[in-house]
């Protein structure tokens, strides 16, 4: 029996621990659904006889000599078969730990998964690992078969016992099995009919479960994402080529290119050997478009509409699985491939290493082969991406070490802001006014230059104490000096902002702008903000690069937590404050600050003295024994 191929086949991956009977199950399924080519069943029977064993349905798949000899599947195999309802492509993924990369390769292609568990052995390491990786790969339709029920005399108690264990594990991953079917592939029980040896089982048989899965739905209703694959100039047309990963595009659409942040209009959608030119295209289509203007566009950029653009960031968090022979380590660099973009990323930190046995996580500084963990990655350039939960196609990536793909991951931004430039000038018709009072004149009147001392550090590191103390002493010396801190900014200028990553980033941008105004007016500004993100401080620096001095007020979390002047750490640990830096949100240390004041082993006076010496050295007109 064969069905028409007009509808796409459902792609089904079969996973599970080695020797739990995946290949046997598939061979038997093909036989029982009449999907084997003529003569194949006889060949399998003959092949089994020649090897002096009972009929081994796994031989249906094992076309390669090496596999037959070892009795394990090395690589994924694709098998086409059908039921009365529809066509399937079965992907047989190897269960041996060594071949996890092949299992991943197969499972990533699938629309649904079948997890095979041996009735006698129960859940084993690879059963759990495969379950976890299905979850990471975004496969949400999962069914479980408990195979080899003949080996446990078809006992219901054993089925119930395993079912409880399996459901518990999967729910820990946020997965729910469509069904848990007791079968014996070898004996043909529960495959295409109710198992007559297990009259106690009242659920669906395997084929019923498979037929209940849903075909994939293209994300045409999500925001447009069209990663640029290439730019062609074969003839007079300049064509931007790429595949629409989500959403729709139409001629005449105003589109945004990220991360360059340019906008342009779609002039045409080009194609070959079609009757009428297309006016629109949607998710899944590989298209070529032309634009109204000749913008510089290159592979790796992402086209979206102006509303609902991707996130722009150079740092993100990810849950990853590691396939590399060498472990993933903090500080190591890899090539990131995200949609069509390729960039170098550095592992900034490894937050957790996940133990698939019991789903617990622990800290670690490396991730070994076949391991799973959560990491923070930092790129040199700005990236356009999405959270995996929002848009899987642009929210996942692979890492390459030298020549090899060594891992894959899915993105989440928890604790990190979208860095899409808020500083863009939206007002038009602004004309710069030329000041007649120059910075030099101001400096001479004040006896010192204006500037920004940007104090950054954890809560409790001593930023405010240091700033207030320094302000007082500098003022006494005749300095025009002023402190910007949470109190005078948060209650006024930034009273509309909260503490979510985006709000904190915006707050820091505003402080940067205000500090620049003060400094331009000749004042020495001390800012006292945690300012945890490197990107935000870099942006503040870029607002006034000649005036900006980064001062790292250093003290480790333990020291700060010991001080806890405002009782904030206590509240954060109790979960009363969300996104608290150092506890539930990251703090990124400065890489090359102009000055580091380590307050952990100094008195306040000693720290202030260090800061004052720096000011005298860099801002006073009488420094180095004379003015200018």
């Amino acid at each position, binding site marked *: 029996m*064969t*069905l*028409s*191929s*007009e509808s*796409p086949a459902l792609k089904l991956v079969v996973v599970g621990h080695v020797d739990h009977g995946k290949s046997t199950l598939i061979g038997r399924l093909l036989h029982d659904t009449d999907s084997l*080519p*003529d003569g194949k069943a006889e060949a399998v029977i003959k092949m089994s006889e020649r090897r002096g064993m009972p009929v081994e349905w796994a031989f249906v*798949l094992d*076309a*390669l*000599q*090496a596999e037959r000899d070892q009795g394990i599947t*090395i*690589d*994924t*195999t*694709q*098998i*086409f078969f059908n039921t009365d309802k529809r066509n399937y492509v079965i992907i047989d993924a190897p269960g041996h730990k060594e071949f996890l*990369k*092949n299992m*991943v*390769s197969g*499972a*990533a*292609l699938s629309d649904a998964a079948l997890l095979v568990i041996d009735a006698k052995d129960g859940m084993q390491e690879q059963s759990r690992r495969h379950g976890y990786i299905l979850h990471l*790969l975004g496969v949400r339709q999962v069914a479980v078969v408990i195979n080899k029920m003949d080996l446990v005399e078809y006992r219901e108690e054993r089925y119930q016992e395993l079912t409880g264990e399996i459901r518990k594990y999967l729910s820990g991953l946020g997965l729910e099995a469509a069904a848990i079917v007791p079968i014996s592939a070898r004996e043909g029980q529960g495959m295409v009919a109710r198992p007559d040896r297990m009259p106690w089982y009242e659920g669906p048989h395997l084929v019923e479960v498979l037929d209940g899965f849903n075909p994939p739905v*293209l994300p045409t209703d999500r925001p447009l994402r069209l990663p640029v*694959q*290439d730019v*062609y100039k*074969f*003839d007079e*047309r300049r*064509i931007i*080529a790429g*595949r629409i990963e989500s959403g729709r595009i139409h001629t005449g659409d105003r589109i945004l290119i990220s991360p360059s942040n340019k906008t342009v209009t779609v002039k045409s959608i*080009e*194609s*070959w*050997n079609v009757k009428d030119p297309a006016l629109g295209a*949607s998710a*899944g*289509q*590989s298209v*070529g478009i032309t634009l109204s203007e000749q913008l510089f566009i290159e*592979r790796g950029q992402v086209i979206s509409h102006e509303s609902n653009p991707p996130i722009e960031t150079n740092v993100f968090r990810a849950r990853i699985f590691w*396939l590399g022979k060498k472990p993933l380590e903090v500080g190591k660099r890899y*090539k990131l*491939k995200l949609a069509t973009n390729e960039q170098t990323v550095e592992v900034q930190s490894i937050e957790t290493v996940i133990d698939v046995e019991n789903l617990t996580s622990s800290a670690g500084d490396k991730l070994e082969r076949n391991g799973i963990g959560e990491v923070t990655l930092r790129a040199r350039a700005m990236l356009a991406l999405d959270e995996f939960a929002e848009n899987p196609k642009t929210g*996942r*990536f*692979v890492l*390459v070490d*030298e*020549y*090899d*793909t060594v891992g*894959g991951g899915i993105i989440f931004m928890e604790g990190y802001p979208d860095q899409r430039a808020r500083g863009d000038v939206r007002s038009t018709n602004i004309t710069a006014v030329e000041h007649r009072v120059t910075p030099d004149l101001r400096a001479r009147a004040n006896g010192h230059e204006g500037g920004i001392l940007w104090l950054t550090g954890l809560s409790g590191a001593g930023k405010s104490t240091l700033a207030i103390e320094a302000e007082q002493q500098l003022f006494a010396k005749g300095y025009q000096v002023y402190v910007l801190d949470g109190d005078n900014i948060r209650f006024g200028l930034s009273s509309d902002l909260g503490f979510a990553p985006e709000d904190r980033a915006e707050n820091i941008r505003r402080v940067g702008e205000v500090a620049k105004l003060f400094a331009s007016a000749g004042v020495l500004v001390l800012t006292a903000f945690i300012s945890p993100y490197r990107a935000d401080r870099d942006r503040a620096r870029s607002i006034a690069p000649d005036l900006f001095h980064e001062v790292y007020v250093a003290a480790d979390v333990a020291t700060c937590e010991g001080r806890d002047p405002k009782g904030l750490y206590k509240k954060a640990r109790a979960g009363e404050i969300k996104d608290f830096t150092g506890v539930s949100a990251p703090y990124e240390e400065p890489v090359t600050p102009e000055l580091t004041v380590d307050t952990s082993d100094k008195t306040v006076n000693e720290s202030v003295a260090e800061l004052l010496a720096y000011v005298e050295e860099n801002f006073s007109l009488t420094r180095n024994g004379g003015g200018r």
Partner: protein
Amino acid sequence: MDHLDALEAQSVYILREAFNKFDRMGMLWSLGKDSNVMVWLARKAFLGHVPFPLMFCDTGKKFPEMYAFQKKYAAEWGVNLIVKDCPPIEEIDPTLPPATRSAARKTEALKRLIAERDIQAVIAGIRRDEEATRAKERVFSPRGENAEWDFRDQPPEFWDQFKTDFAPGTHIRIHPILHWTELDIWRYIQRENIPIVDLYFSNNGKRYRSLGDQDITFPIQSEASTIEEIIAELEATTIAERSGRAMDHEAEDAFERLRTAGYM
């Protein structure tokens, strides 16, 4: 978007990835139905152009209809065609079974062509549903210095992130229609009106389902003389597509040996 649109879009994506990554690349044009579909897909991907040469390893034993077809469409499609003559059978590993040995001439010609032109990547029109070892292939499949395929240690390939970084000396096979089935090919030929060699249609109760050299390819019993009839025939058959290709059947592992050594 229907099924054929989805298959086409994926193939176009693969071809565009390949073109972006390799400067010296060629596409194998065996003149069979699959490779004609593949050339057609390249023209879809590159908006009417085929921006790399089509390569043909000539055994000298193809059917006359195939040579005529090649002459006609190479000119009509305006493609850059490179023909490479295969070495004589005497230069091929004598331990191979006869038909397998004959087929291996093509592999040898291809190796020489790759060396002469310093080709980095070869695009080949194999499909996973054709044959069991092909089912295990990657879309971007690395080969060793002697074109050999190590199916035991293939790179991971997922989320359409293909292997595009290589140690010097590595050679790559690219398989843009790996995910198509035989029926998909025929339905696409029908929809797009793609020219094919007449030998696929029934003549005196026989037709070829798969085309190779005259002496090692055999026709099947069939009355199908139109594409519609071929599709109807395939929807009902349980006979393997390559059953008429002698080298697949000489030994349990004949085709595997051919592919490990670099056959398509």
